[in-house]
């Protein structure tokens, strides 16, 4: 008690939070953001969209159920650092294979507990997401604040290239890892894969595995391509459809992808999620803006303007576009975030193209938007029928 290592989190505004260190001994810089999900820390840690971000959880008890290989959203944690209020001394769950601190240490990610995360969250809400430095080494307040200030920030920086796959690959051709989570005795979410399978070329801008798993389960043969793949390379795969994944950082900085996507879009039914949605936004010629502190959590209400229905969605984004901007460029806004009226979904006026800002693959978060994958499948099937 009181003997564990200490650590520090400093923000660019000069505020300093001290707590107990866990995970790796390291000093990192990044953008400080908060996530309001009450479950799913492992999925958040491994979501490549959090690359270059120091993530704090507003839920106060973290690490309770440990870490399990099945819940990985990529090949390891992608956050720069992890900040929490209280770290569990035990992993208490039948699926747990490792504890949270062991996991972070193994992957070289520093963590900080004992932080007044509510005070931190309020600061980020009021002043916006901030540049930050987190150290679990011996670092003075002044030095930490200095490093936070010196970090250039993520506006205009292309982080996609750091997290995209190196080469194209065929995702889970045998359907080994795509099986949805299930427990004995409950068949509620049993879903049968359609017999007719379409080939989708899926851009990996820093994709979450759950997206590919869902695509697979909803009747797609998923061929993953790197963010830098050219239109010709994609066309050479002869896909039935195009998918654009989530990913980190500023969507405006991924200019090569805007170009490729605008070339491909007219030819394939296309579906985009999160950064993929923002890239479609750019491909349409619209701009994105940085939100003050973003949307990160599993309780974001989204209203479909066309049906009037509201879905509770998982979100993780710091950039967005406005209704005016998208409509100006000929896009149709289909969904709005009810909390702040930002665009949560769009479609093309004529072409079979649609995208959402939120995460229908959940992980973590509610499964309410899962039907979007069926919608994508039906759209592809219809296009296929028309062209046949």
């Amino acid at each position, binding site marked *: *008690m009181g003997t564990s290592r200490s650590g520090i989190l400093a923000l660019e505004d000069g505020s300093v939070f001290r707590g107990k260190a866990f995970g790796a001994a390291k000093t990192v810089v990044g953008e400080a953001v908060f996530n309001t999900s009450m479950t799913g820390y492992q999925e958040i840690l491994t979501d490549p969209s959090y690359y270059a971000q120091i993530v704090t959880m507003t839920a106060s008890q973290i690490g309770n159920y440990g870490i399990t290989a099945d819940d990985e959203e990529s090949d390891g944690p992608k956050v720069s650092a992890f900040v929490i209020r209280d770290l569990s001394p035990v992993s208490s769950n039948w699926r747990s294979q490792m504890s949270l601190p062991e996991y972070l240490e193994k992957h070289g990610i520093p963590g900080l507990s004992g932080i007044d995360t509510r005070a931190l969250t309020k600061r980020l809400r009021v002043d916006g997401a901030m540049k930050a430095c987190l150290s679990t080494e011996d670092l003075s307040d002044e030095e930490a604040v200095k490093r936070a200030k010196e970090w250039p920030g993520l506006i205009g920086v292309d982080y996609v290239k750091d997290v995209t796959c190196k080469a194209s690959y065929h995702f889970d051709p045998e359907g080994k890892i795509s099986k949805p989570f299930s427990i004995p005795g409950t068949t509620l979410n049993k879903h049968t894969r359609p017999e007719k399978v379409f080939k989708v070329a899926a851009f990996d801008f820093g994709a979450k595995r759950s997206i590919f798993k869902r695509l697979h389960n909803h009747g797609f043969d998923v061929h993953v391509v790197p963010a830098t793949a050219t239109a010709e390379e994609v066309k050479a795969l002869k896909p039935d459809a195009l998918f654009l994944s989530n990913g980190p950082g500023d969507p405006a900085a991924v200019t090569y992808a805007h170009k490729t996507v605008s070339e491909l879009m007219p030819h394939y039914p296309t579906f985009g999620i999160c950064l993929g949605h923002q890239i479609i936004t750019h491909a349409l010629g619209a701009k994105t803006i940085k939100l003050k502190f973003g949307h990160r959590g599993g309780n974001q209400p989204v209203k479909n303007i066309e049906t009037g229905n509201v879905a509770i969605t998982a979100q993780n984004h710091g950039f967005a576009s406005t209704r005016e901007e998208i409509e100006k460029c000929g896009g149709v806004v289909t969904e709005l975030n009810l909390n702040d009226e930002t665009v949560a979904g769009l479609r093309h006026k004529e072409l079979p193209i649609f995208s959402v800002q939120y995460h229908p693959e959940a992980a973590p978060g509610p499964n309410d938007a899962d039907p979007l994958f069926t919608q994508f499948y039906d759209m592809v099937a219809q296009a296929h029928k028309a062209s046949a």
Partner: protein
Amino acid sequence: MPKRTDLETILIIGSGPIVIGQACEFDYSGTQACKALREEGYRVVLVNSNPATIMTDPDFADVTYIEPLVPEILEKIIAREKPQALLPTLGGQTGLNLSLKLAELGILEKYGVELIGAKKEAIERGEDREKFRQIMLQIGLDIPESYTVHTMDAAREAAEKIGQYPLIIRPSYTLGGTGGGIAYNKEEFEDIVAFGLDASPVTEVLVEECLLGWKEYEMEVMRDHKDQCVVICSIENLDPMGVHTGDSITIAPAMTLSDKEYQLMRDASFAVIRAIGVETGGSNIQFATDPETGRMIVIEMNPRVSRSSALASKATGFPIAKIAAKLAVGYSLDELRNDITRETPASFEPTIDYVVTKIPRFTFEKFSGADKTLTSSMKSVGEAMAIGRTFKESLQKALRSLEIGARGLGGGGKFGDRDLSDDGAIRAGLAHPTSERLFYVRYAFINGMSLDEIFRYTKIDPWFLHQIREIVELENTLVETGFSKLTPELLREAKEAGFTDKQLGELLGTKIRNIKKMREDNGINTVYRLVDTCAAEFEAFTPYFYSSYGLENEITSSDKKKIMILGGGPNRIGQGIEFDYCCVHASFALREQGYETVMVNSNPETVSTDYDTSDRLYFEPLTLEDVLEIYKQEKCDGVIVQFGGQTPLNLATELQNNGVNIIGTSPEMIDAAEDRKLFKDILHRVGLQQPINAIAHTPEQAYELAGEIGFPILLRPSFVLGGRGMFIVYDMEEMKRVVRGAFDAAPGKPVLLDKFLEDAIELDVDAISDGETTVVGGMLEHIEFAGVHSGDAAMVLPPHTLDRGILDTVREATYALAKELEVIGLMNVQYAIKDGELYVLEVNPRASRTVPFVSKAIGVPLAKLASRIMAGEKLADMGFTKEIVPHYWAVKEAVFPFARFPGAPITLSPEMRSTGEVMGLDYDLGTAMAKAQMAAQPALPLEGNVFLSVKKGDKDRAVNIARELVRLGYNLFSTAGTARVLEENNVPVSRLFKLSEGARPNVLDMLKNDQIDLIINTPSGQTPRADENIIRSEAVMRRVCIMTTITGAEAALEGIKALRNSPVEVRAIQEYSREL
């Protein structure tokens, strides 16, 4: 779609009297519903038999009926008011069952009343276990193997099929699982099944695979007519399966579910609410999971707002009942705003950045002979909730909120010692799920028992055990460190783990003020955090706070005058909804007068802890330390302590010593009324008498004094509420048997002996005074003779047998007492009248349990007026200077939880044991009495067989009753003693064998064959004979009307006559008060 315009009048049915399993949470939900619907312009008709509720205040509905919750009465109300819709989901199980009954009887159809929120079919699907099972299987969810049976033979067959003990037995259609249990062997199985078949109104029980030791969860879900569903809160039980969720320590949010499991449970919850067909509103769905495999079982669902909904509302800040009411009239979730954030819609799921712990409160001490083991049948009478940033903090806060003497986990007080090292006792404490088990977990850790071993005994999830171990380790470190070596870091860690300065003083061996000083020097200050539904993602506008330790204090300052109101904490017998009613009224009244009100309470079931009752809500323990800190930080101008029952009164003196301005009657005077000697002097000064009395400090002294006073004697401890440890003793032998109990009820305090005034008429008087003027609010004559606790006694307002002369004497006495005690606010006096002489039994210069009843009977909100008096106004300014004596009758009847505690005696005594009350209103006294009995249930039978067995002293009056009953066509049955007296008086009676004689048939046989409709059985002494006890228990279980006092029997006779004379009429309280 916006609200429906085809509806004009909506009927809401309340949950009736407070009983175990159905407490004031339904006053909270019903009140919210009334407010929400009237806000939308609907005409709301409310029916509830419980006068102590806020919802039955005349301001909350357009038309309010305080009438019995039975179909015949409801039909009359429907015929009068012609509602287009009935909202069945906000009045607990009572409201739901009654709505279903009205539908089944065709009454709703006859009058064209639509069920909104949940249709008949949905209610049936949710309530009928077999239908529910089938539906769960259809939608791909798992259920325990189980069989519905109606006979013992079928039950045995079911047990064989499941193949292993233990087995769970659940009776159908009983409240909170009455009559259910867990059987570990064949013998127990037979007993529980027999009991359960009895308890079930449809003679049906479910025999079920036992999931003992599995983890248990609850999901609070809402759905709107667009089929949009949201989870408001997930709850994890610390006590694993086997303990009724109402008796379990529960935590929000769920702590040990990964996102995958949580989302599956969420999907399952939505599938359940959809399949059951709850169209709009809230539901509660319970799950069990196997800690080894994750197998997930649906336990049950409530197709209505529940106790857990109230908890979830308080835990998250999301007002489930209010939203449910709005959804029922056509709104969708996205059309409604989140009150707390204002900007965001209600179609979202609250996320919380703190931990909420609820701990139930029990009163086993009131039911001698009852089993204290917690089972699937609910036994707790109340609960405390606490909020902390971490589980540790919230657990310790919840423990000290319970007011059972524990200061938290360790640190002195009850269960706070470090001395228990008896391994056997510790293991026994772990093995049995009781209300004390958590404390034994601590003892086990202190004594070095391994966590694994504790887990094997308790099956409490290791996550919780690790947290508790960390608290104990911290305690150990503090003890080893001592104050001299205490570092600021360790002190901060301890405060963050929920230790109070008092606990720390004990553990560190220093004075509380030294801890305080060190905290101040090192900036370790209490901060207040907002409950904002959104974990700080949005700005919150509702000042709903909890305390913690951290970097930021979220209290905002204001220049208004602030008055703090201290609530009553967890419900218990003797302190419940009546006091919350008074606190809520104080807040309403003072807000109207322009004050800012600061409510402090720890009870999640209440209206007082609704975030819009007061300007500022502090969901905090009611301890000196917690309250002082809020007072200081809020810079309050005054505190009201006389409304929250004993809890705030116990704090009054210390608060005052710490510079708190207590408004209203001074704590010195409140104490003086409790202090024997001072009180004697006061009575002497005003020329009133009390029964001869004395104070004993030891049992020996008590024997000696008893000899001087002479039997019968009323023996009671000082400074307790609800007659704890009170006894009437008739001889020295009995005295010796019970004297220990009286001393134990208030350790360290003397015991009081009063000459007991046998067969005296008792009178409760509630009065209000501003220091100059005193007005009697109401006089309530007890139906039972003196000796029955006033909380348990049936009462009549205005007095029905006392003449004007004596009542005037009572008035004068009351004025004199108010003056002498310098009462500013409310006062309750208990008088006894024997042989024309007036005696003062007790004076309480504070709100009493009868304030809501009296207020409703006379149409004047006494608690509101009293709080304005405390703030400086005069009765004359408010226009209340004249006593109101209504020309109709208001009868109060108490409701008891005896069915929950088989084995405990059911006779009325000076020890209060009722959980709730009902009110019967009518122009005819007999009808008012009959209505009260009808509301309290079981109702008076209008024909049939009466079993009569009375004690010697009652024989003469019994003969008169018997003669009348025969004249009305009832058949009488008695055993030898009573029968002989009746025969001597030429009253025809059939003789029955006594149970102890062994010959059959006896009265028990007749009871079991449903051949007895009314029992009049007055006890033969303080400790009833075994025979009597068995008969009474059987009557309680069979819901046969039973009168245990001769005056009660006389009142029953009046009621029967009235019922047979003319049909019962219903009348709204607004109609009554228009006539005043």
